[in-house]
């Protein structure tokens, strides 16, 4: 089996200098992002960072105020049919017609997608344990998410777009969602764009990630590169420090007493000398988890 290399493929979505304001609040600030074809692109950021607004621009639900958005090379606002027909979308709170039965909902959704695969839809329905005769409004939150996932997947979209799909769901449903991500990307050439604040999930399934913080992209690249760039150094000071020691050029420092952990971007060859100057030595050099990298960039560490 061959999986497309994300780095060599053309982009599925290209966003250039996108800025968006709601009133006086700048929600997206000069965002540029390229989602390569094939693979999983993880978008991380805290609540209110601008993730959903970004996704709404990809879907053409919001028009770019300044900057450009291209999906499959098309403008999603000008050509919704050409774009949306190739996207499967699941939002955090799927807005499904509650009065429909599961089987009615599937027939209804099918009408929108020429590529709808009825056999695949039935396989997924059985796998997800959805009763065809049940009304959507009587489904549990987890079943509702599965129904939404089924509708997003059964036309085998070129781009599966998931906005915080795991939010508030139990581990079983989250696993179903992540398996759908993996199945989609294992089908050659398909792409998943996936936003989450659950960094462990993002780390497991993503090839590429972008980190959005207060409307700006603070980090973007292949997960391997990002992990390889960052380091966690454990510093051991000769004497206990009552407040975080000031070290230039680092992302964050946290700890108590004699031991402090420093997160850096880059090799930081000068760090041993700086540490020595402060009366500390480096006792360990480690690769931080994505969660630690994110917290360091978001600047919300508490010492």
């Amino acid at each position, binding site marked *: *089996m061959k*999986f497309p290399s*994300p780095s060599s493929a053309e982009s599925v979505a290209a966003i250039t200098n996108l800025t968006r304001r709601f009133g006086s609040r700048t929600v997206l600030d000069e965002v540029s992002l390229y989602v390569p074809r094939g*693979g*999983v692109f993880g978008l991380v950021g805290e609540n209110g960072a601008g993730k959903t607004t970004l996704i709404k621009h990809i879907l053409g639900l919001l028009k770019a105020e300044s900057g450009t958005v291209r999906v499959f090379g098309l403008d999603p606002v000008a050509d919704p049919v050409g774009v949306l027909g190739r996207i499967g979308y699941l939002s955090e709170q799927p807005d499904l017609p509650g009065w429909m039965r599961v089987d009615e909902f599937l027939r209804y959704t099918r009408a929108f997608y020429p590529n709808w695969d009825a056999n695949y839809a039935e396989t997924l329905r059985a796998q997800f344990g959805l009763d065809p005769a049940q009304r959507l409004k009587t489904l549990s939150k987890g079943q509702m998410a599965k129904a939404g996932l089924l509708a997003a997947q059964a036309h085998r979209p070129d781009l599966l777009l998931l906005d915080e799909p795991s939010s508030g769901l139990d581990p079983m449903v989250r*696993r179903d969602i*992540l*398996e759908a991500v*993996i*199945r989609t*990307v*294992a089908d050659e050439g398909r792409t998943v764009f996936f936003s989450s604040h659950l*960094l*462990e999930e993002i*780390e*497991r*399934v*993503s*090839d590429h990630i972008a980190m959005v913080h207060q409307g700006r992209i603070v980090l973007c690249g292949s997960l*391997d590169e990002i*992990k390889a760039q960052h380091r*966690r150094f454990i510093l051991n000071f000769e004497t206990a420090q009552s407040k975080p020691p000031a070290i230039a050029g680092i992302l964050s420092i946290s700890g108590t007493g004699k031991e402090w952990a420093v997160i850096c971007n880059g090799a930081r060859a000068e760090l041993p000398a700086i540490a020595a100057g402060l009366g500390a030595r480096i006792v360990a050099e*480690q*690769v*931080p*988890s*994505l*969660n*630690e990298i994110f917290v360091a960039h978001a600047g919300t560490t508490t010492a």
Partner: protein
Amino acid sequence: MQINITSHDGVPIYIQIVNQVKHLAASGRLTPGDELPPIRVLAEQLVVNPNTVARAYLELERTGLVTKRHGSGTYVSETRAPLPQREKIKILASRADALLTEARHLDVDLAEIIKLLRERDELMEKEIRK
């Protein structure tokens, strides 16, 4: 093949897979000729990106532990890889350093570590014979 992935420490997932397959082979739970699950199957089982599994398999193939048979699958090699001795020692040295560091922190002396290694080795030997 049972593998556990954790995201808590920073160890890249493909390296976790590589290390655990090596461990399974070393402890006899994978024997020469055994087939590894297809990439897609293992990816779904572990809930990790298929590219990550593909990369782990490539790495295992590079070290000679597994062999890819064209159009069929990935199998544990019949003959153990001719990994140069120098390379083997290099891999083990970093593991030994980690163990010794931990031991120093815990105030456990070298003699006790050596004793522990013997005991674990005997245990592993028993597992293999079973």
